[in-house]
């Protein structure tokens, strides 16, 4: 029997993650409460140190790092193509989107972004948008769970399963794909994928209406989320909040439109923004509504991609998705910041290379959830404990990306 490797000490917990506020600092009537890291409504392993006065939250301090897997340290010891599986594991709800951001960044560094076949780009956008819907479904479904609505969760999990099976068909993995390669794809789409995907798109449209009727417009849901966790636009920008949260606060900013990367300029889609329809602009309801509308927009993009994939750039025996994959991935010495729109917001990669090896000198990942979470203490002062749970849910956190 190998010996158990842990020396018990009651001080370990307080030493490794000490509280910011001590019992002695509390005012009369205040209480120090710990939420998480193992708590269903923290969406993973987020730990919150909360000071409450009765039922009212006065201060929130997030403690991170319970899911830290040393992405940046790993990335300094392996070639660019081997980093892709690690990128998958950052935002495990939207791996295709993260891969897309990463491979585009490396391709731009190599200067081969113009050589990528158009069919490859359309397939990338297709799978990324499918994954975006899956990610938003989890966000909306689990948010319903937090608020107390159980049925929508089962509905979105049922529909998300169709997406996961489609993506599994492309590469064999359900969530962590490694499907997009630098310069190409692992394989072409499987035969029959386009037809199956078209059928799925037809199936999903009425389901989105059902979901909106059942959850988003539900009176109980509106009362729990409207005018809760209001995030003013200037605060959102100052904290570097991006994605549906920023758009929920009323700014029409989407990197797919701003940077016009990949084949997005050729596709027709809108950017939904929050309007404060049910309460104040930038409340929890607005953020969820934006996610809901983005699912519809993604479906529009999917339909257009499928149309092109069966007409302009249709399946061809001579098509090789690995044709532009470089034999040696050795960018010249440079520094590069690449960014793309993930379901949660701006995913950025900062690369520094020396031009002499296949291994980057430094890779820094700027996860959208990281910045989106940092605004939590600023918008949760003076709310009820039950509203705090509603606010956390509306941030759509993936702790895999916060902690990396």
């Amino acid at each position: 029997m190998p010996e158990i490797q842990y020396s018990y000490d009651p001080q370990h917990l307080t030493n490794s993650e000490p509280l910011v506020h001590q019992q002695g600092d509390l005012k009369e009537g205040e209480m120090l409460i710990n939420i998480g890291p193992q708590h269903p409504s923290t969406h993973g392993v987020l730990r919150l140190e909360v000071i409450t006065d009765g039922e009212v939250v006065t201060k929130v301090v997030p403690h991170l790092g319970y899911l830290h897997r040393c992405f940046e340290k790993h990335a300094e010891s392996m070639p660019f193509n081997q980093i892709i599986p690690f990128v998958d594991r950052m935002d495990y709800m939207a791996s295709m989107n993260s891969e897309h951001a990463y491979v585009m960044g490396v391709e731009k560094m190599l200067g081969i972004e113009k050589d990528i076949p158009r069919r490859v780009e359309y397939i990338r956008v297709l799978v990324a948008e499918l994954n975006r819907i899956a990610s938003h479904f989890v966000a909306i479904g689990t948010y319903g769970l937090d608020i107390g609505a159980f049925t929508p969760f089962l509905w979105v999990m049922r529909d998300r399963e169709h997406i996961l099976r489609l993506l599994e068909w492309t590469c064999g993995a359900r969530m962590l794909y490694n499907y997009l390669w630098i310069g190409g794809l692992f394989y072409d789409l499987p035969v029959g994928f386009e037809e199956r995907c078209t059928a799925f798109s037809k199936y999903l449209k009425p389901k989105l209406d059902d979901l909106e009727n059942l959850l988003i417009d539900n009176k109980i849901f509106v009362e729990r989320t409207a005018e809760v966790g209001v995030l003013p636009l200037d605060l959102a920008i100052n904290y570097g909040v991006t994605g549906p949260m920023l758009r929920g606060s009323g700014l029409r900013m989407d990197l797919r439109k701003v940077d016009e990367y990949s084949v997005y300029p050729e596709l027709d889609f809108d950017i939904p923004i929050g309007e404060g329809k049910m309460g104040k602009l930038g409340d929890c309801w607005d953020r969820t509504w934006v996610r809901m509308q983005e699912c519809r927009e993604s479906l529009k993009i999917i339909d257009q991609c499928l149309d092109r994939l069966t007409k302009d750039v249709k399946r061809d025996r001579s098509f090789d998705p690995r044709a532009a994959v470089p034999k040696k991935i050795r960018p010249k010495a440079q520094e590069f910041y690449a960014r793309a729109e993930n379901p949660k917001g701006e995913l950025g990669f900062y690369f520094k290379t020396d031009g002499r090896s296949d291994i980057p000198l430094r890779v820094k990942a700027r996860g959208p959830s990281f910045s989106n979470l940092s605004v939590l203490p600023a918008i949760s002062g003076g709310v009820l404990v039950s509203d705090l749970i509603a606010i956390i849910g509306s941030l759509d956190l993936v702790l895999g990306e916060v902690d990396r």
Partner: protein
Amino acid sequence: MHLEEIKAKLLRSKEGLQIEELEDIQPRGFQVKPDQLLTICRALKEDDVLFFDMLSSISAVDLGADNGHMELVYHLYSITKEISLTLKVTVNREDPQIDSVCPIWKAADWHEREAYDFFGIKFNGHQDLRRILLPNDWEGFPLRKDYIEQEKYHGITVTYDRED
């Protein structure tokens, strides 16, 4: 807007600023002096025309013990003008210190804590400079190039010999 125009605008805003254009960096940007970082950042944010209102990320880079320096790279974005800008400062590796830009962008708060956590860079004026991702009682700064892992953490072996 071109880089030269931004540079000229910055130089007009205050006297004595030293700004150099950087090569081989995307998005394009400037190398600035550590003691002038706060002034330049404030000028970039508060300028009515430039208005760099968003700080996307702060990345620290260790150049190794031979070089003796560390770099901090600030990625700024102006939403209204749709321009990105990179600022770079070099700090001493022995005693890395730099002014915090938290008063200008709140987004810097956690990014600076991360840089402190992994590189041990101290941010003067930061209100709450603690480790963010690693446990508080972890030893050393892992993303420094000469980092050596501690042997045990709470009795748990941290690294094994590769031959095992």
